[in-house]
């Protein structure tokens, strides 16, 4: 499953990250590395983008970016 499939309040662990791209590099350098815990806080009022919590800070990204982040649901 991907980050896109997580519901608000759910936490997952990053298992892999799409294809090489400058975008992926940016995401990694902001701390979204393999094995990192990631929690979905909420969806924007119109359902996209989403707000997540990672390494203690809040980040927003679009659903199509979230669909490149493969996660394992832990709670």
């Amino acid at each position, binding site marked *: 499953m991907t980050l896109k499939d997580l519901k608000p309040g759910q936490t997952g662990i990053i298992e892999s990250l799409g294809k090489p791209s400058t975008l992926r*590099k940016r995401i990694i350098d902001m701390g979204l590395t393999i094995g990192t815990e990631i929690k979905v806080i909420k969806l924007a009022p119109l359902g996209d983008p989403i707000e997540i919590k990672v390494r203690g800070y809040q980040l927003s990204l679009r659903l199509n970016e979230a669909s490149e982040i493969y996660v394992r649901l832990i709670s």
Partner: protein
Amino acid sequence: MKKTIALVGNPNCGKSTVFNILTGSNQYVGNWPGVTVEKKSGHIRKSKLDLSVVDLPGIYSLATSTLEEVITREFIESDEVDLIVNILDASNLERNLFLTLQLMEIGKPMIVALNMMDVLRAHKDELNIEHLSQHLGIDMIEIVASKEQGISTLIEAMEKDHVPVQILPIYRPKIQKLINKVKEGLHIKVSPTLHAIRFIEEGISAALGHEKKPLDLSPLNAMVEESLRDETLDRDMIISDEKYRFITELSSHVLKRNMSQEKTLTHRIDAVVTHRILAFPIFLGVMWIVFMLAFGPFGATLKGYFELLIQFVIDQVASLLTMIDVSPWVYGLVIDGLLGGVGSVLGFLPEITILFIVLSILEDTGYMARAAFIMDRILRRFGLSGKSFIPMIIGFGCTVPALMATRTLENEKDRRLTMMIIPFMSCSARFPIYAVFAAALFTNNQALVVYTMYIMGILVAILSGIFLKRFVTQGSVSSFIMELPEYHRPTLRNLILHTWDKVKGFIIKAGTVLLLASLIIYMMSTYTFDLQPALEQVDSMIGSIGTFIAPIFKPLGFGDWKSSIALLVGFIAKEAVVSTLGVLHGVGDSAVNGTAALVEPIRAAYTPLAGFAFMTFTLLYLPCIAAFATLKREMNSWKWTFITVGYQTGVAYLLALLIYQGGKMMGF
């Protein structure tokens, strides 16, 4: 001894606040990631030494290739920089430490200022600074920039001499060995470790810049590929991954996180502000408050007092001139030319000041990022991004900083489209035009007409987005990775410095460009081309030019020469449209200055419909020269700059034509 210090840190780490305290100079501070895009420098006031500080853009990493990162990397690698001061948001330790580790790999003298220790404590987290400092082998100073705590200690640390930092062996032995091998293979003297890592991550395409002779790097690249063949991660991920492993490990030793589920203030505010149902009403309410404060009764009252003051000054000067018995032409030049023109624009200073204060508060608190978050979905439909939103809002203040704020959009095409529509957001310089025309021609519906102008600008911007996206952003995939920073109370110093910076620009413009323009227009409107005093204004130089181009605007309803001149002069500065009309209609020495004095002449010269068409045209037509120059600089293309201003002027002409001719047909 002169020493240059580079301030480097993540966006929202409080770097600009530190810079403001250190230098007392003017610096735009935002909570929206990446607002600090210019290289700002200043001198530390409270130091006996000659310390100059450079404030660099807020960045998350040195390893990718956004404009800000390249600027930062190239600057701190250069010989110019003697000391790196890394401002680190202690309440966001792990992600901030990533940049710290990269900065250390440059191998220059460096110290860390741990900022936002108060936020960390408010979260009830505990950080062992001594351990952190020991582990990294780097001096750390605890500060709370928003409360100006720890700054003198920081300055003392900056004054000291520092040895280059020791680059830590944070990687697995295998990776460490590989880095050393690549270092040897590359032979780059300036920050070899950083360059070796870039080469490992990006291969031959890494812009290494510093080699003297072009080496054939493919054997080295093959060696890297070979040694990483059994790795599970791609080569561009390994180094970052290992850095974060080190950080996670380190942070588990030095940081004790408060694990209780207690909601932070930011969470509680966000629960309301980005709420599924409440978000948009709140957003509209905030926008309404912004405009009510600036242009509503409060602003108008302040403006009234300010105009009385201006009138008082003009009266004093007038009686002084009468007393010393100057010749009539000097009197006319000073009172009608200089003070009349500049005065009618300066009257808007209170309203513009309020607008900038409010925008600055929204930015500094962190609300702007939330606005981008809730608006992204809508704006995407118009070919824009949620990040286009903040520049567009700044555009209501001034087009120039708005264009510069688009640098936070990573996608070049998104950015171009945003820049193409920003000038449609009605900047504060255009407000005087609407105010004067609405007062004269729509006495009972002034506010409504002014709002209509703003709404029309927004609508044209949106429709342009839909129309232009097919040509400008076609086929590109944009992204929206944006930090939602903690809410902060804006500091008074930042607020004052930021607003003063903008207001100063406005005053300087009034005192220089507008003054000169008023003078020239006055001279040109009182003399003929033969340098004889013109009996009738229409015979004057300006009258002749105006009469010549006026027919172009005849189908739009304002084919008189005074309008044409005002529009031409508007290219120098939009405020000059009003000051020019003021000079041309000779209102300088009238009993009431500013808006009120222009009411009668405007009523005589325009029908309400023609006036409305004129306002529409000034709203949309080519931006002022400062915006034009910024557009060129930011787009870095003459072609796109001319397409943009050509498009704007075309739209302005068409819409004004449509309004005037359509209105006439409907019998207005």
